[in-house]
């Protein structure tokens, strides 16, 4: 398949410190993967590095997406290819309404041009509004979201729901959910989990990056990977989450001889 996300021997450092140390992973459209790891194992570094955050330096390896090595591409060019990151800590953009922002973003990712530096032609307002309203209803998001300033004064749960709404509107091929359950109470986790579930289908591949298995009660992955010290040390199915739930990361650490990160 051409829309695979193929990560080969990836090494990422942050301010000179190696964090991801040779990571291999394939995610296809239609698949749901969970990448689980304790704090400090490199989960968010991987997420940000895949999307092209300028502070995350790629030392070695390849990330092939859609048949293209994306490591040289700007974040917006990766987005246009169909990669999406739901942020752990979405940034507030005061004064910019969610609807205005999303209209530009949707126009950009759908525009024919692959040149990431040209400004996109806006999709017609009526068409956009209708689509946004439909998606908001589908996800049970309140209408007021559209006119609120992006993530500005949003509660933790609202920010995560806004991320999922963006996912729904941008229709990526592969979505990375970075700790989407963090900081949420159990009801909010359920709401976000159910929202993601509604979007899952053969066109969408999902990489759920998480510390706790609880989001996985709502989004059932076919593939589960355990990340320790910048590498995937175990891959398997649902049984791995059960193991972690029962025993924590300690037995995995011992098995692979990796000490707890400070």
């Amino acid at each position, binding site marked *: 398949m051409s829309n695979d996300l193929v990560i080969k021997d990836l090494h990422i450092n942050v301010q000179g410190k190696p964090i991801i140390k040779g990571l291999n992973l394939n995610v296809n459209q239609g698949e749901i993967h969970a990448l689980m790891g304790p704090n400090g194992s490199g989960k968010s570094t991987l997420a940000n590095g895949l*999307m*092209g*955050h*300028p*502070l995350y330096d790629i030392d070695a390896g390849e990330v092939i997406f859609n048949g293209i090595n994306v490591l040289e591409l*700007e*974040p*917006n060019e*990766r*987005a*246009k290819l169909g990669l*999406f*990151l739901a*942020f752990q800590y*979405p*940034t507030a*953009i*005061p*004064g*910019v309404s969610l609807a*205005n*922002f999303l209209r*530009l*973003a*949707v126009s*950009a*990712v759908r525009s024919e041009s692959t040149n*990431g*530096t*040209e*400004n*996109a032609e806006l999709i017609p307002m009526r068409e956009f509004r209708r689509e946004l309203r439909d998606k908001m209803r589908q996800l049970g998001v309140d209408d007021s979201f559209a006119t609120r*300033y*992006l993530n500005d004064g949003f509660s933790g749960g609202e920010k995560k729901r806004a991320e999922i709404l*963006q996912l729904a509107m*941008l229709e990526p091929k592969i979505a990375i959910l970075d700790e989407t359950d963090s900081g949420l109470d159990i009801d909010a986790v359920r709401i976000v989990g159910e929202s993601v579930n509604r979007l899952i289908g053969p066109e969408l591949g999902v990489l759920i990056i998480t510390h706790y298995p609880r989001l996985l009660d709502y989004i059932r992955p076919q593939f589960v990977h355990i990340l320790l010290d910048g590498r995937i040390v175990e891959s398997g199915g649902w049984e791995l989450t059960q193991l972690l739930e029962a025993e924590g990361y300690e037995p995995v650490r011992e098995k692979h001889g990796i000490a707890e990160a400070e």
Partner: protein
Amino acid sequence: MATPQPNTADQLGISTEYQYGFHDDIKPAFKSRKGLDEEVINQMCDIKEEPDWMRQYRLNAYQIFKQKPMTKWGGDLSQLDFDDIYYYVKASDRSERSWDDVPEDIKRTFDRLGIPEAERKFLAGVGAQYDSEVVYHSIVEELDKIGVIFLDTDTAVKEYPELVKKYFGTIIPSADNQFAALNSAAWSGGSFVYVPPGVKVDYPLQAYFRINSENMGQFERTLIIADEGSQVHYVEGCTAPIYNSESLHSAVVEIVCMKGSRVRYTTIQNWANNVYNLVTKRALAYEDAQMEWVDGNLGSKLTMKYPSVYMMEPGARGEILSIAFASKGQHQDAGAKVYHCAPNTTSQITSKSISKDGGRSSYRGWVDVAKGAKGCKSHVVCDALILDKDSRSDTYPVIEIGENDTNIEHEARVSKIGEEQLFYLMSRGLSEEEASTMIVNGFIEPLVKELPMEYAVEMNRLIQLQMEGSVG
């Protein structure tokens, strides 16, 4: 500059079918020699056929101007040569400039803003805005019915001498500052507005419509009198770059808000980047009156402008919303002043500045509470956004309080476009330029939403233009 000759409609490519399309009585164009002295002032008064009191007023102001030392604070004025400036150019002369003389970048900006042909010529100083004149005449008829006067100040001096004389120069005396003195001596054009008691004008009065000859001058003089319980919104300028071959713009705006009245004065100006824009704006607000300045400054080489409100009687309120965008080679020294001269008066200052490509913006503010003015409240918010490491932002707030029973708050924030904000927006498909433009537009949103619709749209487009090519 082309030799003066009468305009013809064909030359300007404009239909002659408008009822008010043309003045048949275009007088020979006149342009004073460079520099200002008694002779130039007398010449100007003769041509304008001004009453003697105004001539005396000008000559007196000129004496004051001569004695004032060059302003040393604010921006760098050392390159400003008062002798190298034409102080009086009769309007019909202005329209003789050829379209070919207008700089390419200005023309391009007109294109990008989608400004109609006739309007472009007007803005560039190469033709009069005939369409607008028609609009102006119908507005004046409407206003006439409710007793509102809306004229250029030159005409008002002749038609309403008592009213003008009573207020002219009382809010900003000639001796107030160097540039007020200069304007008082050399002024031409500007608007005169009088709103009778209890009258509410429910659409904005736009200087843009009042195009009778000289409103685009360098030394406009505007006087607005809002009588008791009246309401008016005056809009000046437009977001297209104002092209004028002269490099000094020094306007004076005086406003009187009588008991219970409400005045809003909105300015959006985008001067060509060779212009010194040195403007004095002041309003007096009496009992329970409310004065609002909305002031947007783009372009120019140096802008020094601090709209002020003097709250003269209890219950008066002053609000100033100002925004400055300083780009390469530009210094925006803008701010606000509020004087609480009476008890229980309130004020709010919101200042937003953006600095880019080595531009510098300064906030200069003054909050004054007089002794005995109990129960006053003032809230100042200053936000600066710096787009790159070459650019600069400064804040010079002064707070003078002669009364203990007051409540003054001052908040100042300086921010940079965050890497996280850019990354977030870019991860959604926006180019770096689109992302920064969106952040800047969000930053000024509190001001933009106060603007009339068409100005808000143009303001956003203008920011987009300013941001273009800013990302390398």
